[in-house]
């Protein structure tokens, strides 16, 4: 019962039965930085979801009369070289950038969890083959291969999601494998075997939930990374293609020194937005690690 007391120091003395989720949440809530990050990312996600309603203009509306306008009351973030409202485009850009992050990290999670649990559960040659594949993918400089893949498949939102997903599952795979190797030795897994459960059910219902904590932590970190990579690819013109805006491709014109020099409002806000969202996701991941790691109980 020491566990409950430690997590719940200020509570009344009557024994309160807490679910693990409540304990984790209470621990997470005490971490101020992680909580602020959670608020920030929630706001950013809400802005992205409701972008069409919040945005003062149409996303791709070109107004050549008002090109390259600095920020003003009318155009909060100024306008770009085609006279499109940058506040609107940054709102919509968040929609794209954050969805790429979420979808790409979901793709990698599915691949990583499936391969990792196969390797960890079945061991032997299955493990050997999967670990060799993991080594191969790990030995590619991520961005070089992502650029190559984007160029071959043709740059688009979906290809960006797929490429990032296909290249970033290795960490999850190794993690799940490691977890499975140790969980496999537990008595409750032996119990499932003696009860005659089939293996898929054992993996899915009994092993995976117990391996979930580290997977979740690494998923947040990988998602932060996915947002960064999408931004880098789009900045290089190999990710999301205009007129669809993403935070990365709004910045793209700043590759020209002239634009960089004259139009700070073009590159500063999307750059900061990427930074802030990636930072919050990373800090949430860090807070989750502290909340979930039983070694850091106190």
């Amino acid at each position, binding site marked *: 019962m020491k566990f409950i007391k430690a997590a719940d120091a200020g509570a009344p003395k009557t024994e309160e039965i807490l679910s693990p989720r409540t304990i984790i949440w209470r621990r997470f809530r005490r971490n101020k930085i992680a909580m602020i990050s959670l608020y920030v990312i929630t706001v950013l996600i809400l802005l992205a979801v409701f972008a069409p309603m919040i945005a003062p203009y149409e996303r791709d509306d070109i107004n050549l009369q008002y090109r390259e306008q600095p920020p003003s009351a009318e155009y909060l973030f100024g306008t770009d070289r085609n006279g499109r409202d940058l506040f609107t485009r940054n709102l919509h850009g968040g929609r794209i950038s954050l969805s790429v992050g979420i979808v790409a990290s979901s793709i990698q999670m599915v691949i990583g969890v499936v391969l990792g649990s196969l390797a960890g559960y079945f061991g032997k040659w299955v493990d050997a083959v999967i670990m060799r594949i993991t080594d*191969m993918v790990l030995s*590619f400089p991520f961005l070089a291969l992502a650029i190559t*893949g984007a160029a071959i498949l043709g740059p688009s939102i979906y290809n960006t999601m797929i490429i990032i997903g296909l290249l970033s599952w290795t960490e999850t795979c190794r993690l799940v494998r490691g977890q499975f190797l140790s969980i496999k030795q537990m008595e409750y897994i032996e119990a499932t075997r003696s009860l005659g459960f089939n293996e898929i059910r054992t993996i899915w219902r009994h092993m995976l939930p117990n391996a979930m904590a580290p997977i979740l932590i690494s998923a947040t970190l990988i998602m932060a990374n996915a947002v960064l990579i999408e*931004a880098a690819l789009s900045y290089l013109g190999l990710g999301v293609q205009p007129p669809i805006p993403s935070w990365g491709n709004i910045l793209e014109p700043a590759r020209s020194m002239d634009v960089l020099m004259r139009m700070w409002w073009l590159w500063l806000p999307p750059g900061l937005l990427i930074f802030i969202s990636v930072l919050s996701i990373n800090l949430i991941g860090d807070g989750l690690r502290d909340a979930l790691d039983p070694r850091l109980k106190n």
Partner: protein
Amino acid sequence: MRIYILRRLLQVIPTLVGTTFIIFIIINAAPGNPMSTLVDPTISAEAIERRIEQLGLDRPLLERYGVWLRETFQGNLGYSTRYRGRPVTDIIQSRLGPTMLLTFSSIFLSFIIAVPIGVISATRQYSKLDYTVVVGAIAGVSIPVFFLGIVLIWLFALQFGWLPVGGMMRAGARYPSWFAWAFDVLRHLVLPLITLTAAGTARFVRFTRSSMLEVVRQDYIRTARAKGLSERVVIYRHALRNSLLPVVTILGLSLPFLFSGAVITEAVFAWPGMGTLIIEAVTTRDYSLLMGTNLFLAVLVILGNLVADLVYALIDPRIRYD
């Protein structure tokens, strides 16, 4: 020990084969064939057909992979279309120097900055300082590399005019002495180096800190303290040495990350290395060059990991070689 080295060396073979195969498959997934961009459009379809047959482009995939692999092992990576038939190996050679200069000075610099910060932060776990370091390191890995580069260019090159905006030396400059040349390269190196080092330092700080925290909890550290050694000796003599061991592996594992960072840093600063070469190859659809650069970087990473593993085995007597 010998068996461990041998086994580790043998492990490289399937990885290399698999890696080359992945690259081959990806490049072959490109739409069209090399002929569609190479030849004069007025040439008849039959002539193109004949040429494709001559070049063996109609053979099955595995056969072509075999031929390509054989040539690659003989040091022939094909010829660039963008550089008018220059051998790819030649071009890579000319770009290798700048990339190595950038990445290795960045590794060196991040290491030197990160280790003391990580150690100090770990010895004062949960202090204000430690907190700042942890959050700062997370911030460091959260900045988009290209955005940091842009901000630096804007500030130090465009606003203040202290440093050049990009490239590795002044265009068309002739240097009176070797020293003047080195100084100019150094001036061009400053901003890309800071950009690349920021993220690297942040990563290494986190590794050093967690590795140090791990070591400080060990029994032999308690023993050292119990012996009455001063805290300085305990930390810097006993703990630091052991906590730096895994950092060797991390250095090896960080190579792909560093090269990735270098690709984008080079792109931002027009640094004439492998990164800009890949982007050039992509934008001009120069497939041999693209294949060559990807292959080269991948092999470099595999060898880097191999060296890191072997060095680790050499310096850590606790590793069992079964």
